[in-house]
């Protein structure tokens, strides 16, 4: 089916559809590692420079002298077909960049919240955020060496998750494992979509 589409004359065919999946979680939990494990390119980095316009929302207390802040996001790409491209964005870890999350979450079909059982509380803000927004998400427990193994239902209880939210184990370095996490997310998002559609009909 590959007709060398990348060499198509510019503007000759309709542009593909792009969809967005977020990868969230605490600092150092392996967001960029997971993005890199499934991306067809090494993760790229893009930056937003915030100036005075962002100050009303961005809590700059303590750094008042600073007029600009740079927020970096790592992302990767998976080309599904000529018509469909998936972008995976690692969310910036700091709470004061929530408004960047708002931009990222807009139109995202779902999110993976990566958790480290040694620092479970680090993923609470991400979970709160996606619950509040109604963004479908799954929790993927990244299995670090040296971390005690918990049962998934223990993690689910510790995070006080709705019973429907999938919790899976993963190794963010492994492509197959990262793929499985994304498939779980998409299946979950599809189920939620169907449930919401039914609820809207009732």
């Amino acid at each position, binding site marked *: 089916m590959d007709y060398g589409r990348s060499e198509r004359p510019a503007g000759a065919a309709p542009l593909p*559809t792009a*969809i967005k999946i977020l990868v969230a979680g605490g600092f150092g939990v392996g967001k960029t590692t997971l993005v890199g494990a499934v991306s067809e390119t090494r993760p790229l980095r893009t930056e937003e*420079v915030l100036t005075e316009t962002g100050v009303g929302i961005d809590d700059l207390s303590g750094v008042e002298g600073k007029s600009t802040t740079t927020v970096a996001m790592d992302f990767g790409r998976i080309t599904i077909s000529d018509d469909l491209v998936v972008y995976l964005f690692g969310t910036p870890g700091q709470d004061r960049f929530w408004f960047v999350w708002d931009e990222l979450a807009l*139109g995202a079909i779902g999110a993976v919240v990566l958790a480290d059982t040694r620092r479970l509380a680090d993923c609470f803000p991400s979970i709160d955020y996606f619950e509040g927004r109604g963004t479908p998400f799954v929790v993927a427990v990244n299995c670090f060496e040296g971390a005690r193994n918990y049962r998934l239902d223990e993690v689910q209880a510790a995070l006080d998750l709705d019973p429907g939210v999938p919790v899976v184990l993963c190794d963010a370095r492994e492509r197959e494992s990262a793929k499985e996490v994304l498939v779980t997310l998409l299946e979950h998002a599809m189920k939620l979509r169907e449930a919401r559609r039914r609820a809207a009909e009732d």
Partner: protein
Amino acid sequence: MTGGRESAADEWVDDHAGPVVRPYAVTGGRARPVTGTFDLISLVTATRADTGAESGLGPEHLAIVALCQRIQSVAEIAAHLDLPVGTVRVLLGDLVARSLVEVREPRATSAGLPDESVFEAVINGLRAL
């Protein structure tokens, strides 16, 4: 089709091709694009092989047109040119106003999620990776 154009594009995606001027200098001090919103995953493609004799364009505009001979997202353009996303949006606005690039905004999914067929295609695509 022309190998020359491909290699020209590759030159612009060199990791070491960082900016030599501040972002605002690149946009002539403008913070917002003249047209368009440009989501991070809006897809951009050049409508022409080069910018021809268009005047008033800077090297960054030309770099975007060269890069977008292949379809790129706004985020990818920003990453490859090592420019902040806000700067790239301004430059893309200029190019859209001159019809030098075509942009596809992502489906508006804030109110809902895409079709089931999209989910199925992504799931099947991931499994086939």
